[in-house]
């Protein structure tokens, strides 16, 4: 495969453009219409909506139920809460409550995370809210490769898929194939192999975990980094296999810990008898502090986990047991 370097943000746009070329049933809805898409696909398929997230989310559901394949960009995940009724009460349940008679292929994109001094409302990572719901697929790419491949899978999927895209990674460059490819939804990726401890990391934290792993390597600690890539379905097998191998685990997430993805991952690991048995130390969550995100960098930096805290977490689980 021939490869090119592009950014995480660009990878998302490429997925859209390529899939919109392939399928004339796709259309794009957002409060600002991306000029490139309008130019190529026209204002009928690429619509600028009023600031009415609730309605255009519902419109996407209805359009999907009538044979279209809408791609919705809520922009920041913050704005999807205006549309939460349509997500929780409609999109996640509509296929089920109507007995499976109709499919609702929709992609809902949004950006998540903090680190840009945008304060509490505009710095959120609430994906675990959607995990407790049944009926939504959830992707959380950490590299340009995964972004493009997962987003393409999402657009081709016949279910509502929420794509959570890390603000901090928008400019991150990485290789993507020139050819068409997809990344399957529901398959974790071992981003680095190791034998002493597993770090399960989400999105931006994958890169912090890789940096932490390099650091620990110098101390002779071999760190495996697992990226679940999708939060629903969550690839339990890959995570459990890694932890059964290493016997120790740190779970790193930019969201707060409480009932977060990290809690679910910890519970999935410990409730599995073989993994529980293999655990030489308590699983350790390295997450944001459980507070709204403050504006001033002096406080904001303190709230988020990073490579340093991952290293501290690794040290803690290495010392335990």
């Amino acid at each position, binding site marked *: 495969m021939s490869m090119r370097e592009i950014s995480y943000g660009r990878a998302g746009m490429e997925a859209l453009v390529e899939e919109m070329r392939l399928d004339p049933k796709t259309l794009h809805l957002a409060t600002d219409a991306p000029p490139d898409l309008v130019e190529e696909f026209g204002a009928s398929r690429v619509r600028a*909506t009023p600031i009415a997230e609730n309605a255009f989310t519902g*419109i996407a559901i209805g359009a999907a139920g009538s*044979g279209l394949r809408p791609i919705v960009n809520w922009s920041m995940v913050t704005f999807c809460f205006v549309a939460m009724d349509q997500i929780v009460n409609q999109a996640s349940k509509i296929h089920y409550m109507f*007995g499976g008679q109709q499919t609702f292929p929709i992609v809902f994109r949004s950006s998540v995370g903090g680190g840009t001094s945008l304060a509490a409302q505009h710095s959120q990572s609430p994906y675990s809210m959607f995990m407790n719901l049944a009926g939504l697929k959830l992707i959380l790419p950490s590299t340009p490769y995964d972004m493009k491949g997962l987003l393409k899978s999402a657009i081709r999927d016949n279910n509502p898929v929420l794509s959570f895209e890390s603000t901090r990674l928008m400019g991150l460059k990485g290789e993507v194939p020139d050819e068409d490819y997809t990344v399957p939804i529901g398959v974790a990726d071992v981003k680095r192999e190791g034998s002493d401890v597993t770090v399960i990391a989400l999105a931006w934290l994958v890169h912090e975990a890789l940096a932490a792993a390099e650091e620990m390597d110098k101390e002779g600690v071999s760190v495996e980094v697992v990226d679940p890539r999708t939060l629903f379905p969550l690839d339990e097998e890959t995570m459990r296999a890694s932890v059964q191998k290493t016997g120790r685990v740190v779970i790193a997430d930019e969201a707060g810990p409480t009932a977060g993805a990290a809690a679910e991952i910890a519970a999935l690991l410990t409730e599995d008898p073989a993994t529980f048995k293999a655990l030489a130390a308590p699983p350790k969550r390295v997450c944001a502090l459980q507070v709204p995100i403050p504006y001033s960098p002096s406080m904001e930096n303190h709230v988020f986990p990073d490579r340093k805290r991952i290293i501290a977490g690794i040290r803690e689980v290495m010392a335990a047991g």
Partner: protein
Amino acid sequence: MTASPELQRQMLRQMQTIRRFEERASDDYRNGAIYGVVHCYIGEEAVAVGVCSALDASDQIISNHRGHGHCIAKGADLNRMMAELYGRVDGYCKGKGGSMHIADFAIGMLGANGIVGGGLSIVTGAGLAAQMEGKGGVAVCFFGDGASNAGSFHESLNIAASWKLPMLYVCEHNSWAANTSSKMTHAADNMSDRAAGYGIPSAVVDGNDVMAVYDAAVEAVARARAGEGPTLLECKTYRHRAHTERAGAVDPRPAEEIASWMARDPIPMLVDHLKQQQGQFSDKEFQAMDDEIMTAVEASVAFAEASPFPAPEAALEDVFAD
């Protein structure tokens, strides 16, 4: 344009079918064969029937929590409806939905909905799909006066107006939202006064007069098909029953208000109209029609009873499509 005598009889048949179906559903709910909650449309039949009579089979509608009437008016199968209420595998939703979630996408009935205002935007998406398909399809939303105060009403009508979507928004103004009077929640005279704010036409009609509803719908549908955008149609009507069929449910509505509307029951009104208009229509004919309807309703109950309950494990199916 006025409905042909043929069409008028068909409308009467549909209205009476809704009524008989719901009377039975209410009984069976109270005796425990139907679960959860049942909201009856009885008294408002002229709205669903008048509007759906103005539609083509390929047009689409969406409904709310009070959905049986819309289903029947759009041509849903009584057997599969009743089987759904009975929670059986042959129900429209395989027993997963119940009264508040009957849908039949094959006939353009995009579903009842348990969220007040929830359907307004969804059906607007169907209108968008119809517009993009370019074959003149129209999408219709049925919703209550209560729903007209939800944000989704505003957002949806504004988008439909801005995009000139082929939509008809039908407000079933029965003056109550559960136990709250619309007098407490609306300050303007008519709900449809809101249309001007979106730059779209509106009409207020007697929702118990099926001919008036039909005529207004025909006009609005023609406009939508011609690419002239949405219309807001307000139908003044009334429910004969309490908000739900739950035994002992409170009903704070004044007795005189109920009585005055009962006196304007849309079904006798249409029967009288038919009798006056065409000498040939008689009480006997209506009786024969009703007998046929009762037979069909009985048959739907038999169908439902014969259909098995879903296997417990079926709960795990249909979470995701392939």
